[in-house]
């Protein structure tokens, strides 16, 4: 039983192939992190899984081809947290979280007590119940990200796609958000597929990493297998130091390139 199964999946946008014959299995309850330089195709993979772009090859979500499912059925299985969510400033947090119930409300119906309960419980799980009546425009970056996560949780989908969930958050808010996701995963049988920028964070939270470059899979496996100085140097063009500690996990520390540093000093 797999949550997501990609088999030689390719995506072309405006005639340019941005994902090339990618194969990937995500098991239920797993957290798989997609990493790779800008333009590697991470976001496109997530959008394809969410049924938002056309693809070639196979893409199954809980054993059904995504392209064959109705929009509503996809939304019941998959919740997407986009990189830059659109935040209507005048909407209250509760109204916003209620949008997550959309796939569960019939076309002519309106949300009922059960939907409201799901929203309140989602906010409660993120320690955000006190934000319910605040307007989105008045929230801090961290609070806003909680509102977005709460919407995804209220959607009650077994698979959550996170696209750079911590961009623009300070280190504390980053940690909070990721711990919340990790906590949600521990409580239920939630599967997470995320695109991640910060390699240290990726290594610490994901069970498995997939390194993409140019739309192709370069490496896949345990964080320690993928986060190597050679691979990062080759595909990010960055010089880094990978520090591995049995207790603290992996940290990827950027190093200032030698030559450049000397020029500046000299």
């Amino acid at each position: 039983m797999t949550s997501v199964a990609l088999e030689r999946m390719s995506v072309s946008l405006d005639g340019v192939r941005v994902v090339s014959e990618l194969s990937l299995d995500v098991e239920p309850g797993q957290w798989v992190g997609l990493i790779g330089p800008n333009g590697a195709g991470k976001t496109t993979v997530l959008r394809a899984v969410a049924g938002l772009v056309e693809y070639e090859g196979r893409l199954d979500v809980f054993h059904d081809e995504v392209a064959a499912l109705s929009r509503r059925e996809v939304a019941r299985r998959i919740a997407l947290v986009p990189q830059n969510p659109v935040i209507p400033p005048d909407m209250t947090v509760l109204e916003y979280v209620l949008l997550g119930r959309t796939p569960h409300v019939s076309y002519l119906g309106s949300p009922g007590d059960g939907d409201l309960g799901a929203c309140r419980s989602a906010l409660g799980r993120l320690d955000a119940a006190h934000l319910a009546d605040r307007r989105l425009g008045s929230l801090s970056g961290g609070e806003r990200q909680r509102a977005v996560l709460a919407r995804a949780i209220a959607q009650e989908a077994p698979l959550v796609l996170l696209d750079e969930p911590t961009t623009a958050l300070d280190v504390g808010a980053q940690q909070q958000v990721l711990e919340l996701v990790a906590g949600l995963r521990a409580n239920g049988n939630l599967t997470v597929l995320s695109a991640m920028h910060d390699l240290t964070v990726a290594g610490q939270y994901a069970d498995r990493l997939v390194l993409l470059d140019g739309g192709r899979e370069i490496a896949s496996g345990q964080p320690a297998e993928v986060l190597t100085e050679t691979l990062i140097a080759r595909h990010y063009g960055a010089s880094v130091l990978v520090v591995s500690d049995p207790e603290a996990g992996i940290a990827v520390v950027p190093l200032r390139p030698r030559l450049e540093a000397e020029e500046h000093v000299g």
Partner: protein
Amino acid sequence: MIASSRARRGLTAAAGLSLGWAVIGALVLGGALLVGFAVGPVDLGVGAIVREILSHVPFLGVKSPLDDTEQAIFWQLRAPRVVLGALVGAMLASAGAGYQGVFRNPLADPYLLGAAAGAGLGATLVIAYANDSGASRELRPLAAFVGATAGVAAAYAIGRSVGGRTTASLILAGVTVASFLTAVQTFVQQRNTDTVQQVYAWILGQLETSGWREVAIALPYMAVSWAVLLVHGRLLDVLAVGDEEAASLGVSVSRVRLLVLGAATLGTAVAVALSGLIAFVGIIVPHAIRLVAGTSYRVVMPLSIMFGGAFLVLADVLARTVTSPAELPIGVVTAFFGAPFFALLLRTTRVAGP
């Protein structure tokens, strides 16, 4: 105390229109209708009108105080005009709310998007070239609908091609399309001097009725339009987070957009065909509602119908009385109040857009 008010607000968020606002809306609309019924060259009196209306309700046993002539004035002249005003105002306001939801743009309005100008051109063509045929009045809504659809489509296409879908580019495109269509319309009008008077009076907006005929023409179209608009309030709320996120929440964005646009354009076309170009109702009514009652379209849509109807009935009362016994075109009244309000709105709107 705070907790209970929070719980209540939570409930409204889930339930849509609250009972309190529904009652206020009904009272305002009812009050406006009564004012509209009561004001006119022949003084009928509010109390007498209420009793006249109640006398038609079976089993109440209320006797009408009006004589035959007064009854004729009320039922054949005044009531149809006031009711048509309420329908047109309600339609323009709710269509405006629909456009605003679809385009995620608080400045979208049937008038600014080229819908009204397109409808105007369509109706002018009918007046100019098919005025002699008996079906002229009935043909106008259809021609107006075709024109309105073309106007909105052109505005949307141009707005998209020049600058994505920002607030400003769509409005500028709408104004461009409207100017062009208005120019064509003026040309047609000048070429047909025999009907110029009729077209001109109609352009400025006039609630002209001959008995209940106009109401009967408008009602079926508007009923369809309102049914679609009201049903889609919840989904318009989802569109607020953008096409892609709305799709990821399970909404067929293009279908919702098409249905709401079609309904709003149909309603606008009928309103324009029957009453001419009445500007700003579609923008000031929904916006005022958002300020006081909340931004959810499940609230804005029904209240736009009620307050929009009330607004135009009262504007018509002004149009009828300010220069009495002459009549001001109602479009002049709405523009007189609407334009300053629009300027205010421009100042406070984040022009960057979605």
